């Protein structure tokens, strides 16, 4: 319901063009979406009056001065309602954020919240999105190159609760991989280094640390139960095994998770978002590869210690991690509708800077996820 004392504003990140006399073209800058519709002169004048300060009554007065006619306030309300429905304007309420996030968060994440606003119509959903991020508990297995970047970027977005799993120690050669690397950290546990770095980003961050490697025996049911979203970047002993273990547990608890890093992360594999009952799970992927690679039987490599010779650039891990964080935030904050989500793993090539996606479909008969029904978060 629109009241005459309400104040509206054009949503941030929108450009409005008038083509000829009566076609309005709306350009949503952040998402590059465009819509066009016919509008009469009255609507154009009205849009030009919307500034986030004037109430509807004020706008009525101003319009009446301009066209020197009495205007029916219901006509104004009608146009405004249409503009609201099209996602072009929103009510500009003061302090509407305060039921969702603190003033401090409003100030710090203002531009990000505006970014969310381009995905989410209405006045409050962008603040709800930020609240979801702040309240989520994120569990990360493996806090190396990709895991460290993901944790850092999520913390920058506002995530406050982390459970981190890693048994490794910072080495001097990690200068080329870990964003949290500092010379002074060489020799200390990676989790302590990462914690110090995250605490600087946001002193309010809570971190639970498990200084251990994932093994087939590690019990993960309880720790996954505590988390809202789970990320696996643990590639020791082998990402395929850790992912199977983690993904199966997440599927049984119906929790969305992301398998990042590992495999050919130095080639910037995008990893994959797994939503139980909607996307392929790790077992679906495993079956896909089993079939796709059935004729691929490499001979044993002559070099024994070849894991020491793996190459990679930190910018490749950054790309993988940033890709993952975009998908994770879209999911947690509900920025896009995931019902028709169909992205599977992509591979980013350093040479050509292209992403090639695999076409992996969910196996309806999958022994792990086949019977799971998708539930909207």
């Amino acid at each position, binding site marked *: 319901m629109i009241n005459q004392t309400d104040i509206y504003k054009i949503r941030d990140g929108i450009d409005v063009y008038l083509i000829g006399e009566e076609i309005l073209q709306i350009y949503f800058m*952040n998402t590059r979406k465009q819509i066009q519709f016919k509008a009469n002169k009255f609507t154009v004048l009205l849009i030009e009056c919307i500034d986030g300060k004037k109430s509807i009554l004020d706008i009525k007065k101003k319009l009446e001065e301009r066209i020197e006619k009495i205007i029916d306030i219901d006509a104004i309300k009608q146009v405004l309602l249409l503009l609201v429905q099209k996602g072009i304007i929103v009510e500009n309420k003061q302090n509407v954020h305060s039921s969702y996030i603190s003033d401090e968060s409003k100030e710090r994440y203002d531009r990000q919240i505006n970014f969310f606003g381009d995905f989410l119509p209405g006045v409050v959903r962008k603040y709800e999105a930020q609240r979801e991020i702040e309240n989520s508990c994120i569990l990360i297995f493996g806090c190396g190159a990709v895991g460290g970047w993901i944790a850092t970027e999520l913390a920058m977005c506002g995530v406050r609760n982390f459970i981190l799993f890693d048994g490794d120690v910072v080495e001097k050669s990690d*200068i080329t991989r870990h964003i949290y690397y500092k010379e002074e950290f060489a020799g200390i546990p990676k989790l302590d280094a990462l914690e110090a770095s995250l605490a600087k980003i946001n002193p309010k961050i809570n971190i639970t640390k498990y200084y251990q490697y994932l093994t087939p025996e590690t019990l993960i049911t309880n720790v996954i139960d505590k988390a809202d979203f789970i990320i696996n970047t643990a590639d020791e002993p082998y990402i395929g095994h850790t992912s199977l273990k983690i993904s199966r547990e997440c599927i049984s608890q119906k929790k969305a998770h992301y398998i990042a890093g590992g495999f050919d992360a130095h080639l910037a594999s995008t990893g994959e978002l797994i939503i139980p009952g909607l996307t392929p799970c790790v077992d679906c992927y495993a079956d896909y590869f089993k079939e796709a690679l059935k004729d691929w039987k490499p001979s044993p490599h002559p070099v024994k210690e070849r894991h020491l010779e*793996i190459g990679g650039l930190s*910018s490749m891990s950054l790309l993988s991690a940033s*890709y993952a*964080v975009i998908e994770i935030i879209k999911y947690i904050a509900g920025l896009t509708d995931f019902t028709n989500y169909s*992205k599977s793993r992509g591979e980013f090539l350093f040479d050509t*800077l292209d992403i090639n996606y695999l076409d992996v479909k969910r196996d309806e008969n999958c022994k792990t996820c086949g019977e799971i029904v998708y539930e909207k978060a």
Partner: protein
Amino acid sequence: MKKPKVRSSVSSVVHDINTIEFFLTNTRRQVIMKVPNQNVINLILSLDGTRGIDEICQEYELDILAKKNMINMLKFLERKNVIIDADKEWYKEDYQRFRRVLNFIEDYVSVYDEKIHAWNNIRSSHVVIVGLGAVGTWVTYQLAQSGVKKFTLIDADIVEITNLHRQIGFTLDDVGENKIDIVQRNLHEIDSEISVEKVYKYINESGIEEFAKEASLVINCADKPTVDQTTLWIGESCMKYGVPHIIAGGYNLHLSLIGQTILPFQSACVKCFETKLNEINKIDISNIRKLHIENRKIGSFGPLCAISASIAAMEAIKVLSKVILPANINRRGEFDIYSMNISYMDISHDDNCEWCGVNGKFC
């Protein structure tokens, strides 16, 4: 070649006793080779870099002719980047810390001298970063982590609380400080050997000639007053001295534009881009009016900035190595957050370019 070794990143698949396939996992290249017999396959699959040529010959009882054939085959496999000389003497100083970068570069070179050359080029390079914001901060640390030791940073801005969600390395404690000082501090924490020249200014129409002429590469991450404007100022200074430059901050409103890489006089320059884009975007604007909107605030998102920055950093390493060909010459791209795809637009060199065309002022 002293001690041949199958590269670590190579997977070998024996199809039959006469065919072996090598898959170069890092560069996604494939080499299929016909061989006379199983012995040759066994020989190749034993190349672990510990034995010299003569030792291998003895082990496989090769006569002089067979030895000659083997050496030719090894040379072929070396050229195809399947095997490499395991002699690591040349980079032992850096090897411990930077082995992942070194191993990575190794996949793009086939001969010994080229390896030394590429790594030394990166290590001795001098990179100018203009603008330490949502792209410049990420790019700078990426390059430091890949071995760049000398930077000139140009920016007059101070850290604000609204920067923290998208500009890496700034914390609450840093609000109010000069961005340059904080970036320098962070670089020194990563590697105390890094040297930083600090230029506390915003660039303007006078360009950056005095800094560009000394540089191996200039990266534009500045968007004030607009990206298009800073790009022309920087492009002009770089063209004058033939310095490669990358437009990294070319994102639209802190979004996902992937800018072009310019190798002066080898690729389209920023003036070529401007001319072609103006042609493409030439629409009848006499009929179109942009409505004025009061009190607007534009959104931005850190991970999207990081995508642009990571790609700029990859291109930078390619340019600095002088061995790997950059991909974003004559094109620029966009990363779409909905489809999660990258798309590119090709822009070719303009023969009549005011700057680098036949009668261009820099030719």
